[in-house]
C-alpha cells in the first residue's frame, strides 16, 4: 500500500518540473526578478520590463510547455519570428509622433546619421573578438541604434538566436540613457557650448505633415526595401494621425493596438531568456558591446553637431547631436535636461526632437543598408 502510494507520488513528481530545475534556471529567475525590481522600484521602462521579467521567470521554471513549440508563449515568439510585431509597433509609434520638429529644420536630420557611429564601432569590435560571424556582429551593432523594434527586426533577419541578448541590451540601455549619455555629453562639450540657445523653429502646416508620410514611404520603399515594412507602417500610422479625419483609427493604433502588441512583444522576448541559451560568455560580451555602441553613438552625435558648427553662422547646441541616437523621446529629453542644468531658460526639447526623430530613420537606413550588404532580403 505504502509502496503504491510512493510510486504514485513519484509519478506525480515526475510530471512536475521539480526534478529538472537547474542552477542556471534559478539564476535566470533572479535576473527576471531584478528586471521587475528595476521596473517597479526604479521606474525603468515598466511597460516593457514587467512583461519581460515575468516571462523570463516563467521560461525558467521547467515543467510547463508554455515556451515550447505549441505553447502559448511560443506563439507570441512566432510574431517576432515572422517579423510581424516590430512593424505593428512602428504603426503605433507613427500614430503617436509629431514629425513637425524634423520637417521644420531638415538641416539637423544629418545628426540622425552622425549619432550612429556606435553601431559600427560595435560591429568592428564584435568581429575583432573572433567569437561572432559578421551577421551576428551586425545584430549586436544595431543595439547602438537605440531603437527596440528595429533592433528586433534586424536581429531576426541576421541572427535570430541572439534575439534575447540583443533585445534585453537594447531596452535596458534605452531605459538607462539618462545615466549613460550625460557624462559623454559633458566630456565632449564646454559649458559655453551647452548653453547655446536655439532660434525658434518655423510652423509646419497640415499639408506638409500629410504629404510627409507619402514622401518618406516612397523613398524608403524605393531605396531601402529590407526595412520597408517598418518605415511603411511608421508612415501609415503617422498619416492616420495627421489627416485628422480618422481620429478613431489613429487613437486605436496609438493606444489599444500598441498596448496589445507591447504585451505580446514583452512575453515573446522574456520567454526566449531560458538559462541554457542566455547564460553564456557571449551574452556578457553582447551586453558590453551594446554599451559601447550606445556611448559611441552619443559621442559621434555630439561630435557631428560640433562639426556642423564649423560651417554654420547660427551655431547649434551640440547637445542636440546626442539626441540623434533615436530612442524617442528619451534622448531628446536627456539633451534638454543637460542643457537646462547650464541655463535654466534654455528649452531645447523641441529642437532636440528633430534629430531624435531623424535618428529613427538613421537606424532604419543603417539597418537597411546592413541587411542589403549582407545579402539579406
Amino acid at each position, binding site marked *: 500500500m505504502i509502496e503504491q502510494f510512493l510510486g504514485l507520488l513519484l509519478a506525480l513528481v515526475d510530471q512536475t518540473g521539480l526534478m529538472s530545475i537547474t542552477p542556471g534556471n534559478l539564476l535566470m529567475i533572479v535576473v527576471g526578478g531584478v528586471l521587475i525590481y528595476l521596473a517597479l522600484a526604479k521606474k525603468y521602462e515598466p511597460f516593457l520590463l514587467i512583461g519581460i521579467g515575468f516571462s523570463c521567470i516563467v521560461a525558467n521554471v521547467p515543467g510547463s510547455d508554455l515556451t515550447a513549440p505549441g505553447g502559448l508563449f511560443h506563439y507570441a515568439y512566432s510574431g517576432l519570428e515572422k517579423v510581424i510585431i516590430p512593424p505593428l509597433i512602428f504603426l503605433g509609434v507613427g500614430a503617436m509622433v509629431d514629425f513637425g520638429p524634423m520637417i521644420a529644420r531638415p538641416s539637423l536630420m544629418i545628426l540622425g546619421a552622425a549619432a550612429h557611429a556606435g553601431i*559600427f564601432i560595435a*560591429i568592428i569590435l564584435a568581429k575583432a573578438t573572433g567569437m561572432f560571424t559578421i551577421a551576428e556582429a551586425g545584430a549586436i551593432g544595431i543595439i547602438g541604434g537605440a531603437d527596440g523594434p528595429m533592433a528586433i527586426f534586424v536581429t531576426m533577419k541576421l541572427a535570430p538566436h541572439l534575439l534575447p541578448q540583443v533585445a534585453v541590451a537594447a531596452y535596458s540601455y534605452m531605459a538607462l540613457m539618462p545615466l549613460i549619455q550625460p557624462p559623454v555629453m559633458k566630456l565632449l562639450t564646454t559649458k559655453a557650448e551647452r548653453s547655446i540657445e536655439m532660434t525658434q523653429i518655423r510652423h509646419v*502646416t497640415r*499639408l*506638409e505633415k500629410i504629404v*510627409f508620410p507619402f514622401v518618406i514611404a516612397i523613398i524608403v520603399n524605393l531605396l531601402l526595401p529590407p526595412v520597408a515594412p517598418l518605415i511603411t507602417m511608421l508612415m501609415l500610422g503617422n498619416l492616420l494621425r495627421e489627416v485628422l479625419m*480618422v481620429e478613431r483609427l489613429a487613437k486605436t493604433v496609438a493606444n489599444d493596438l500598441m498596448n496589445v502588441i507591447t504585451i505580446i512583444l514583452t512575453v515573446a522576448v522574456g520567454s526566449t531568456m531560458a538559462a541554457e541559451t542566455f547564460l553564456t560568455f557571449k551574452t556578457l560580451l553582447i551586453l558590453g558591446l551594446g554599451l559601447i555602441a550606445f556611448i559611441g553613438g552619443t559621442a559621434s552625435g555630439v561630435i557631428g553637431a560640433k562639426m556642423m558648427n564649423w560651417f554654420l553662422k547660427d551655431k547649434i547646441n551640440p547637445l542636440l547631436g546626442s539626441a540623434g541616437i533615436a530612442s524617442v523621446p528619451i534622448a531628446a529629453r536627456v539633451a534638454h535636461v543637460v542643457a537646462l542644468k547650464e541655463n535654466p531658460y534654455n528649452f531645447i526639447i523641441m529642437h532636440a526632437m528633430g534629430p531624435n526623430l531623424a535618428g529613427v530613420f538613421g537606424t532604419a*537606413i543603417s539597418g537597411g543598408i546592413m541587411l542589403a550588404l549582407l545579402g539579406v532580403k
Partner: protein
Amino acid sequence: MEIVPMTVPDTLEGAYVLSVVDFFLSIVIIWAISLVLYLLPYLNKLGDVTDESLKGGH
C-alpha cells in the same frame, strides 16, 4: 568589365568595409531626404489645408 553584386565577406576586413560603406551611405541618404524635406514648404503655395476642413469632412 562586368560588375556583379556581392556581399561582404565574413572577416574583420569585411566588418571594416561594412561599417565604412554603411555609415557613408546612411549620411548620404539621410542628407538626400533632408533635401527633399526642404521642398515641402513650397507645397503651401498650392493652397491651405485647415484642421477644421479635415475634421469636418467625416
